[in-house]
């Protein structure tokens, strides 16, 4: 279980110091869906970066099954193996095939080509894009690109999938499809999902909603 323990993040120093997060305590139980919601500047992105180990808290810690992700793990390796991240802007490699894009995290982990492509194909099948494996990423629609990004996040069999505004760049129909896909994956595979969003309708579909305002959790229950 991933736990946020008393996390504070301060930017700047002395008179210019600014707390983006203040004493945050949250836990994400396995197999649950959680939405982190709040306005721009509320601290959502900062919390996401700290949750994924891309940034370090000024105070406090993040633990995975009781172990600090910063002290007890090699944070980069932990992130690669335990976390799948879905970005608003997809971040696909446009000239590479869909299959190569999905296999990228495994390539970074040093998995052999044959094995990683096989796993990538399985991940693509999970998002119903198995038949587009050889298509160039640039030739896909926005919705399909986000499906590929989700497959890429799933390919390492992570314990936690973090989606940062996953429908922010999509039209309403595609947004709906992607939301449905995320919740379906949660039900079928049991992946713990955290969605960072400012979309209240999407947040309402999650089992838990964390409202952030000025770096503080103002509501932590649904």
């Amino acid at each position, binding site marked *: 279980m991933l736990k946020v323990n008393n996390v504070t993040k301060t930017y700047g120093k002395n008179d210019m110091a600014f707390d983006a997060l203040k004493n945050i305590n949250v836990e994400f139980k396995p197999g649950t869906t959680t939405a982190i919601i709040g306005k721009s500047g509320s601290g959502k992105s900062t919390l996401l970066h700290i949750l994924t180990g891309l940034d370090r808290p000024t105070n406090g810690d993040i633990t995975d099954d009781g172990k600090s992700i910063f002290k007890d793990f090699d944070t980069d390796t932990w*992130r690669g193996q335990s976390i799948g*991240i879905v970005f608003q802007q997809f971040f696909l490699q446009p*000239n590479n095939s869909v299959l190569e894009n999905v296999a990228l995290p495994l390539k970074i*982990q040093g998995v052999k080509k044959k094995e990683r492509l096989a796993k990538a194909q399985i991940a693509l099948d999970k998002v119903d894009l198995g038949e587009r494996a050889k298509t160039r990423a640039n030739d896909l629609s926005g919705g399909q690109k986000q499906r590929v990004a989700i497959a890429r996040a799933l390919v390492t069999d992570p314990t936690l999938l973090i989606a940062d505004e996953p429908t922010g760049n999509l039209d309403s129909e595609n947004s709906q499809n992607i939301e449905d896909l995320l919740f379906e994956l949660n039900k079928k595979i049991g992946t713990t999902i955290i969605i960072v969003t400012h979309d209240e309708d999407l947040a309402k579909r999650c089992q838990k909603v964390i409202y952030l305002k000025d770096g503080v959790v103002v509501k932590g229950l649904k």
Partner: protein
Amino acid sequence: MRILDIAGTANSNLRRSKLRTFLTLLSISIGTFTLALSLGLGQGVRNYITSQLGEYQDVNLYQVTRQGANGVGAGFGNNEPVKYDPTKNTASADISQNFLKDSDLATLKDTEGIANVQLPYAASFEYATSPDGDKYQAPTEVRVPQIPVKVVAGGDINTESKDNIMLSRKYIALAGADSSEQAIGKQVSFTYKNASGQIVNKMFTVKGVFEPTLVDLPIKINQIDTQQIAEAQAPFGKPSFYYVYVSRTSNLTNEQFKKNLKAKNFDANSLADINNTLNGIVTGVQISLAAFSGIAILASIIGVINTLFMAVLERTREIGLFRALGAKRKTVFALFAVEATLLGIWGSITGLVAAFLAQLAINNIAANTFLKGIEGIQLLNITAPQVAIIIVAIASITLIAGLIPALKASRLDPIEALRYE
């Protein structure tokens, strides 16, 4: 990330910006091209010198002169004035000042380390007449047994081979022959003037044909006849010698031997010295040419640094993505470092291919134009070790050039990188 995947990713990254990669490779390959040609030229000339003089490297034979006789005294327009010394005979037109006197020869024989002294008698002929009656100029030298010759037909002549000569392979027309084998046993008449101006004819038999080198005269005559003719041609029957051949005893090193001679006012030069001097000159020229190539390579290195900095900027978001997907800083560093190394490898291979093509063309043109007639010379000769050294050196240099961009890439904040527009 596995090293093969890093190399594959770096290689496909290079293919993304085709024009920029092409221009960078072009600049590296121009540097490599000039470096390979300058090394190949040095090697080609060195090979030729070795083919001509290499066998002389271990010959125990020195040409000994009076000290300074090989240098230039007063008398040449571009020299500094030399103070007059009344104890020395230095009349500028008197070249006899450098001839070895009987006392010099006696001193030499008494010098420690001298195994024997040979007088280099030289006969001078007006012409030679072939069995067909054709007359030819006849540049000759005495056959010195210690100096190796490559016999291509017949046999060598030794000190006892009276009335025998050897001809260069290119001089067999003197024997009226079309092949080296045909020349053996043929009689050639040589004509010379004695000291009183009388014409004398002497018949010689061709005993051997040899492959000529740079330092060979085309006709070699046995020592007995050479001495007789030289004495007949010299005033009062006493030839003068500017130098003599000496051999060194085995108990002294080359350096000790030369030092002994120097102490008694003699200079000694071996055939190996000539070989080494020529090779030294070639090495000097080679280094100078390589230095010019170095400037071209340096310019291309700036191109490599620029290319990689551009690549880091262009791929900032991708670097952020890699980090977000679990890549360590060192993986990002390795991706760019390998990319720089690959630029060096591909650039040097391209330059070497061009250099090999140029080598083929230049050697072909040279053999048919300005080097026509010089057998055995291959002007450019790029060797396999040189190829390996060039590729490793260029790849190492581009790797070093890529370290700063690679470091910059690896130090990017992944969050900022993902936000980069």
